[in-house]
């Protein structure tokens, strides 16, 4: 037995490896990135015992994982919450195919939007697909749950969704690991050769099987041990706490004894019998959920004619944002001690592009090229370069979802915007930009697509980009005219030249692609430091 200090993300990866994982696939996205980074760095991956890979996007990641499951092995796909939207098609249908080898999908939600464009709650996706959902309370449980999740998946013939949030993903704690890890499954195709063929006739049969399975899935939530009824003597209040909300609740009681009955939930569908028992034995109920008020909404129902239920819906707790111990203290009407007033001198320090970042030169050139046209011409995308929306650049006018720059520019051009410019990063382009570019090429839409090629997936810490070395070939292959693909060197020296090229392409009545190419300053510095360290050693 060995105790490691791990991030929640890392505990999930280690738990999966120790549970006989064969393959893990992901596209990086905060706060999920460190799961796959850890797996890629593991000795099992370096020895070739497991496959751990970054993929083009979350959909391809999950589909590859389903393929591993098809071949009888245990697989995992990891993503941030909005990545699950991208993977929604295989996700929903994988509940209908069922599994052969165990399949676990991890979705890391980001309440308070620390590094995201929304705070959607992935538990709804679990309910939507009719899959069991696990929501670990801490790093140890995240580790322990992986073996359980794979077993459950194989036992009930269904993928399992593991939902975590930023705080658990990015917090470290000691984790006790098992001394002997499980052997990987042996290779073996499904017994029923048509299990994964979702033709309507087979899909109808499979879906009925899923529906018939549901009572077993519900039963599992009552007996697994991850949900718990903790009795209390004071029946004036009953508390339901899900996932890490339970920790914030515990934090508010001396000696960690809560006088009220509590149902702690870390597995869904929520345990109906435990909730009924609580509801029947207390005067009113407080529901603490890290995320949307999912259980609260269900318990209240449309008419809300039962007992008083406090939570996010009645304003006891804010409807948005992540929880913390102080928010829970207020919800419990606890006295909050006076603290020092905040200092007026403190001003906000928003994130910014790094000194030396190639995007700075690219935006300076783009802004100058657009000086005559004015504001409102640039549709952008998700990555470090989204910071171009802030001072001092104020260069971009949208950030919606991965790939939306090109398609929105197309739509805006169709509606009369000229010039219509898309700004997208190299990795985002191969994630979801290529198909939109094809649309624009087919219809000869006059748009100027700027692919900022820094050779990496920068925002999430510098994972390799699938676009590296093949951007021009991809664009040519899709059908962009050779004369309208320009590779620029975004440095001060070439500023005027770059502005002139961009401006010229605005006049072209078709698709132009401009590729400012210079390595990310963070990966460059890291590479130089590494070389220096190697030299110092030898």
């Amino acid at each position: 037995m060995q105790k490691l200090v791990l991030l929640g993300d890392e505990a999930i990866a280690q738990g999966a490896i120790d549970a006989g994982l064969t393959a893990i696939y992901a596209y990086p996205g905060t706060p999920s990135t460190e799961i796959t980074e850890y797996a890629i760095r593991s000795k099992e991956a370096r020895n070739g015992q497991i496959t751990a890979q970054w993929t083009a996007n979350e959909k391809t990641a999950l589909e590859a994982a389903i393929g591993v499951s098809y071949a009888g092995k245990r697989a995992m796909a990891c993503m941030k919450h909005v990545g699950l939207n991208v993977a929604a098609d295989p996700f929903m249908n994988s509940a209908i195919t069922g599994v052969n080898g165990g399949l676990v999908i991890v979705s890391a939600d980001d309440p308070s939007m620390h590094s995201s464009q929304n705070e959607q709650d992935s538990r709804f996706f679990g309910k939507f697909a009719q899959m069991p959902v696990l929501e670990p309370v801490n790093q140890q449980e995240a580790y322990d749950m992986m073996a359980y999740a794979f077993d459950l998946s194989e036992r009930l013939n269904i993928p399992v969704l593991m939902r975590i949030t930023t705080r658990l993903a990015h917090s470290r704690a000691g984790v006790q690991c098992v001394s002997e890890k499980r052997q990987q499954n042996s290779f073996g195709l499904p017994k029923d050769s048509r299990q994964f063929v979702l033709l309507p006739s087979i899909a109808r049969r499979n879906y009925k099987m899923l529906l018939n399975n549901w009572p077993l899935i519900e039963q599992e939530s009552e007996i697994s041990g991850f949900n718990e009824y903790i009795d209390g003597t004071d029946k004036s209040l009953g508390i339901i706490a899900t996932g890490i909300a339970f920790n914030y609740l515990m934090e508010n009681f001396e000696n960690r004894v809560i006088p009220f009955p509590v149902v702690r939930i870390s597995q869904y569908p929520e345990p109906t019998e435990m909730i009924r028992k609580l509801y029947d034995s207390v005067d009113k109920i407080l529901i603490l959920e890290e995320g949307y008020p999912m259980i609260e909404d269900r318990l209240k129902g449309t008419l809300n004619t039962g007992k008083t239920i406090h939570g996010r819906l009645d304003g006891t707790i804010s409807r948005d944002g992540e929880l913390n111990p102080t928010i829970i203290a207020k919800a419990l009407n606890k006295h909050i001690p006076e603290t020092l007033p905040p200092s007026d001198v403190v001003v906000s320090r928003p994130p910014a592009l790094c000194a030396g970042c190639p995007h700075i030169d690219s935006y300076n050139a783009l802004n100058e090229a657009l000086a005559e046209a004015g504001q409102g011409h640039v549709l952008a995308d998700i990555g470090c370069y989204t910071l171009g929306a802030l001072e001092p650049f104020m260069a971009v006018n949208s950030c919606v979802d991965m790939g939306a720059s090109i398609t929105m520019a197309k739509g805006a051009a169709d509606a009369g915007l000229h010039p219509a410019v898309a700004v997208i990063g190299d990795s985002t382009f191969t994630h979801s930009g290529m198909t939109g570019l094809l649309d624009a090429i087919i219809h000869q839409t006059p748009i100027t697509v700027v692919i900022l090629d820094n050779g990496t997936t920068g925002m999430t810490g510098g994972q390799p980009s699938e676009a590296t070395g093949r951007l021009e070939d991809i664009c040519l292959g899709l059908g962009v005219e050779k004369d309208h693909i320009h590779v620029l060197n975004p440095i001060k020296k070439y500023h005027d030249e770059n502005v002139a090229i961009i401006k010229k392409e605005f006049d072209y009545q078709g698709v132009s692609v401009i590729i400012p190419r210079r390595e990310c300053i963070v990966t460059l510095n890291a590479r130089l430091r590494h070389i220096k360290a190697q030299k110092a050693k030898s």
Partner: protein
Amino acid sequence: MKTDIILGGVGGQGILSISAIIGTAAVEKGLYVKQAEVHGMSQRGGDVMSNLRLSSEIIYSDLIPKGQVDIIIGVEPMEALRHKAMLNPEGWLVTNSTPFINITNYPELEDVYAEVRKIKNHILIDADAIAKQVGSVRASNVVMLGAAAPFLNIPEDAFFTAIQRIFGSKGEDVVQLNIDAFKAGFAEAQKVIESK
């Protein structure tokens, strides 16, 4: 025993490194540890913070309740002040005096220092200057760790073991630099404590 710490700084200033040193040292001494970090967009030159909790008992929450922070460690003075409302009024604010100015509306430095001095228990030292004397300004984060160490309830040797473990792969020079930086910060803090 329970120590709740907030570390504040700007992305890239090395708060995750000192957080890792403290965490490793605490685990070495058999304590429970929880350490919540900031990854992602804010790391690009924005304000970053870490909640670090050490205890002889099991720790539940990854986040520290408001007003219960025992020590704020700032590798940058305005960033230390950002978390002031989290501090227990009897707690310590230990911060570097060298500002990191990457915004146009950074406040007057004397105003920032005046706010630090309003806090009953504070240590304000020029960690960058001390680090430079020791060998490299890049070790200023570990100078701050040394300056906070008298309040962390962890014996000195555990920090040295942790520094060895975390910087060992970068060579003996780097380990020694960081041990020297730690000691210099510790000595500076002792002077302030003794003068009280």
